[in-house]
């Protein structure tokens, strides 16, 4: 698998990361290096081996169903560049 300049531009756009046009070839090259390493890993025979999701033998931690958080509108909105009447205000997202 090989990543070209266009694919690199698309991945950057999906991630909302601005990459100047002249930086794209280098980015594509970096992707290719990563994917090359992955391809190398693919050579390992893992038939019948269950994927490891954690290095610690832990069970997913659970919570009981109780309201223990919230009611902090001021704190939630504190970092917002623009907030009005309790809402986050963002540039209009529909035409």
């Amino acid at each position: 698998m090989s990543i070209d300049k266009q694919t690199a531009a698309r991945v950057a756009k999906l991630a909302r990361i601005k990459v100047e046009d002249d930086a794209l070839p280098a980015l594509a090259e970096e992707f290719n290096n990563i994917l090359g390493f992955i391809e190398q890993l693919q050579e390992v025979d893992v038939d019948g081996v269950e994927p490891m999701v954690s290095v610690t033998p832990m069970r997913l931690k659970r919570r009981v169903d109780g309201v223990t958080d919230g009611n902090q509108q001021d704190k939630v909105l504190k970092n917002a560049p623009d907030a009005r009447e309790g809402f986050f205000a963002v540039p209009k997202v529909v035409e």
Partner: protein
Amino acid sequence: MLDLSFEPPKPKVIAGAKYDWELVIGMEVHAQVASQAKLFSGASTQFGAEPNANVAFVDAAMPGMLPVINEYCVEQAVRTGLGLKAQINLKSAFDRKNYFYPDLPQGYQISQLYEPIVGEGEVIVDMEPGVARLVRIERIHIEQDAGKSIHDMDPAMSFVDLNRTGVALMEIVSRPDIRGPEEAAAYVTKLRQILRYLGTCDGNMQNGNLRADVNVSVCRPGQYEKYQETQDFSHLGTRCEIKNMNSMRFIQLAIDYEARRQIAILESGGTVDQETRLYDADKNETRSMRSKEEAHDYRYFPDPDLLPLEIEQAWVDDIAASLPELPDEKKARFVKDFGLSEYDANVLTADTQNASYFEAVVADAGDGKLSANWVINELFGRLKKEDHDITESPVTPAQLAGIIKLIKSDAISGKIAKDLFEIVYTEGGDPEAIVEERGMKQVTDTGAIEAAVDEIIAANPAQVEKAKQNPKLAGWFVGQVMKATGGKANPKAVNELVARKLAE
């Protein structure tokens, strides 16, 4: 369980300009879990709070915040799966569905793509007595809801409220087994009924707690059967998905519009593009939503913040043991134990509250059929007139049972019973005491009825002569006697006496 046998309904056929067409519909129903707190945070799920009041830092996706799953939400998904006779997966896992939108601050929705908690199940969708569609469930997964964007408060800005962000949803995905707009609405109705019986979702569509994405395609007759045989989708047409429907009526209108739109394209030689569309109720049309380009590249991957969700069979068994009687079983039992028609049983089991009201009445009064008639025709009819539901009924099951017992013991006639019901409905009180106090008791004393009959016969010799020629006119005498006794005479006794006297 006792099964009521049924046959599948005929698929809806739409006649195009050139050919006949059939519809193929699959649905993704999003049901909000009836929990106090959100799926991964301790913020409240309460509807109608101040904007951004029900928001934890996890929901606002503040850096470093980590999700911790609400066990109750998991339990409700399992309960729902069991209620839909579905496979429960003891191991499931969470994935990130990545997309950017202001009401999704994480930049991804935590969902379950690869390993959902619930696998294949089924729903029997009743269309009419003896006719039902079996709709297969493909899967149910747990996921986070997004927030709410409001676009009409300011000309240049959108306003975002994260109160709904992170609330737990169950996405219930059906196979494309639904064959018409009416079936689609009936499917959602049945799902809603089951969810409400289970108590896992309140089913409030107006508040958006239950909403459906509808996948619609059209095909020529015969193609669907080929798909059913092979499960090969290439026999079917290209589908479009209509997003976020939260009204039974609009679901039907949108499907009908969308099917006709696709038929018009196909008959004029075009091809249907697979896309997401929105239904505009004001114009009754669906419109393409494709303005978000590349919106469909979600780049799912396992969420590294959450270990796989492993549950124990014993826990699932405990939940299974606590399931209530479900609508199909209840309906079958009402038909079998109380001798009700399937139609009446359907009406009485539509909601658990209807069903428990009826059961309380029948337990006290006996006689299932008579109790069903009074609950459905008199009580529901009267409640509907005032736009009330059963929980607002001024008549208790004990009071209604009291009226029914008075009818059964011949203490009052059916006609008087309706007057009595109206008194109990508007004024309250014990039916038996009211009957005594107001002298409404049926006259079964034949002597008194006989006297009334004699009086009418003596006063109307001309009518007597006519009635002797034409026995059908006896009804006039019966009516006069009933009138003279204020409706309290036992109609059966009056009929017999009038017939006998006229024959003398």
